[in-house]
């Protein structure tokens, strides 16, 4: 029974509730931010307060919490009380999954709903794996970047398993939309957290990122992903020849220079020596106004970025002023022969 349909029976008219007196809200004589509750809302919450205070755990209270959640899914007190009752009554948690999904179909952007789902799934254990992965997939079919759903999916994988199809799922999402940063983040998650992941390796992930960049160099996601692969391993990053080669290709194409230059800034700061082709390609994109300035390549890159990426001019200036600090840190990362 929902308060939204015309057949809603006021609780005060329901014989099974005749023994309970609703409790008024203690708003005081001059409440602020007072909400003009509908009669249904006020009544449902009045009865909820009564049983919450009395601590009753029963089927009728369970149903009442469903009504209360229906009119305000953000009421975490009601959700918490519902969990207490579900436990006390040893309720069928599979039905609970349906309950949550129905709510999610109306509005899935709600912390409480997802926290509850996680609690239910934890109780059901590994038996719930497939259902949870399918559920989140349904959410993603409507919104492939749904934050809560991705957190839930990660929790399921870490705690209940089901990794086998995950990298393939990431591939599919990225084929649908290569700009989907949530899918890139999930990819990173699989590659780093899947115990004994054999489907891929550092080299193949680097290749995947590079190919994605070449498809759409203006896409920030794979650039960050590529850097992320070498997090805490800058030495290997600098030593990998495919990376400057990528930068060279992008610089020559003249599309989306800022990511390529930004990456070169980091690589050269950490010891990369650009070869002749790369040095020429960098020179070629330096704007007229600063060409011929006799400064080192790092300064030249920063100055170039100040001009071609004006939204971040201050940031590039900040980088330029801190090159020594970066280089000092970078030198420490390199073996001096």
């Amino acid at each position, binding site marked *: 029974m929902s308060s939204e349909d015309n057949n809603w029976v006021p609780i005060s008219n329901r014989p099974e509730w005749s023994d309970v007196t609703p409790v008024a809200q203690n708003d005081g004589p001059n409440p602020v*931010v007072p909400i*003009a509750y509908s009669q249904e809302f006020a009544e449902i919450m009045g009865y909820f307060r009564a049983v919450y205070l009395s601590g009753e755990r029963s089927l009728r209270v369970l149903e009442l919490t469903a009504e209360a959640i229906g009119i305000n899914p953000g*009421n975490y007190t009601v959700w918490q009380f519902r969990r207490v009752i579900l436990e006390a009554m040893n309720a069928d948690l599979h039905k609970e999954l349906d309950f949550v999904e129905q709510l999610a179909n109306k509005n899935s952007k709600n912390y409480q709903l997802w926290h509850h789902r*996680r609690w239910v799934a934890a109780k059901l254990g590994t038996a719930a794996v497939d259902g949870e992965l399918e559920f989140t997939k349904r959410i993603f079919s409507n919104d492939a970047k749904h934050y809560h759903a991705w957190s839930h999916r990660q929790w399921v994988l870490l705690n209940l398993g089901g990794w086998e199809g995950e990298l393939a799922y990431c591939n599919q999402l990225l084929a649908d939309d*290569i700009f989907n940063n949530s899918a890139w983040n999930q990819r990173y998650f699989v590659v780093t957290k899947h115990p004994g992941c054999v489907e891929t390796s550092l080299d193949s992930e680097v290749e995947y990122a590079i190919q994605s960049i070449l498809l759409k160099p203006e896409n920030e996601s794979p650039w960050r992903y590529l850097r992320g692969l070498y997090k805490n391993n800058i030495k290997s990053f600098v030593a990998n020849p495919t990376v400057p080669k990528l930068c060279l290709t992008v610089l020559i194409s003249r599309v989306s220079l800022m990511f390529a230059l930004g990456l070169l800034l980091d690589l050269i700061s950490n010891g990369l020596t650009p070869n002749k082709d790369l040095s020429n390609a960098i020179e070629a994109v330096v704007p007229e106004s600063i060409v011929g300035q006799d400064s080192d390549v790092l300064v030249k890159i920063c100055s170039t970025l100040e001009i071609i990426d004006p939204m971040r001019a201050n940031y590039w200036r900040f980088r330029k002023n801190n090159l020594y600090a970066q280089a000092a840190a970078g030198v420490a990362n390199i073996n001096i022969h």
Partner: protein
Amino acid sequence: MESSSSAADGWKPTISQEDQWTLESQVFHIYRMLCDIPPKSQAAMLELQRDSHVEYLEKGLRHLGPSFSVLDANRPWICYWILHSIALLGESVDVALENNVIDFISRCQDQHGGYGGGPGQMPHLATTYAAVNTLITLGGNKSLKSINRGKIYSFLRRMKHTSGGFSMHEGGEIDVRACYTAISVASVLSIIDEELVRGVGDYIVSCQTYEGGIAGEPGSEAHGGYTFCGLATMILINAVNHLDLASLTDWLVFRQGVEGGFQGRTNKLVDGCYSFWQGGAAALLQRLHAPAPAGSISSDLSDDGGSPDQEEGSEKHSDDEVSIPIRRHTETEPLFQSQALQQYILLCSQVEGGFRDKPGKSRDHYHTCYCLSGLAVAQYSWSNDADSVPLPGSVLGPYSNLLEPVNPLYNIVVDQYNEAHEFFSNAPALKHE
């Protein structure tokens, strides 16, 4: 890898691209309009409509329609969003209304400590944060005295989780937001201690992603809201150097798009509220990166509680508290493009009475709060010193657009924060059972 577009398919934008281009065309339509009108009309378009905002805000304090039922568990938040906005605008409410707020908030208090979303609701970290910030924003003895620090402390201890993080409420979710709301409250009330802080730093570090931003939980996507929460918390517990600040900064500056506003995540759409979450985080980073004396590596905060005499003009707090070296009277430049952000806020988010996410969305009190907070941060972004008054060049539109300065760690107006800081650091130490 399979190519997602081949000659046979024809070229088709992805959903991310489509959404982005739709928004860009709406935003640039507005900006082009600004270019095409005479200077007097331009000034009018860029003007902060103070009166209409105050009217919208005060109305909300007095009455909210039935559609607000879905915020029935968030009423201290509504108080904070409204009162903080009014304070930013340099206004205040009448004494009677102030007293009503103090009374109402105290009815949201749980007998064992902490504030819930409304009278009779379980205490919750977020609503506790909102309630405390509301009372501090009102200021004055009555308001500040109404806060029971001892009970709040015991609530915070109950919410502490073995992972080092905090649960939002009993049986509630654990995430970076919970850490921030807990630590912010503990810090501002001068009740922060080793028990509360233990493990928080490690938890937040585990939430910094490969992109550089911070996620809500370990493994999740880097996100503006959680980045603000994580960064502010790390500063408050004096552990900020455990984060990779270079990659955080790099991620952050790339969240400002061609529209001038900030997006919350890579390849997502700009939203006015990130003016504060991302802009505020940038302001915090700016103070950390404050230019070093010539010849030395940029100044860092030390890990061992900070030495108060290290930096000229650092704020001295009691032993348990953070000493944040702040360079006084320095001019600096914002890490982000402040004028562009102000332009987005004033032209795309501002409406007649309130602010919204983006063109096409409706105004609400949350966006009003965070757009104004972001606007204040942007206006003051050329200085690291809260006392200095921004030059006219810092303020987009008429100089009368200038808001009150805000403390970006807590998002409380500076004067009110200072009063509370004075009040609570002089308050008696808590006796722990």
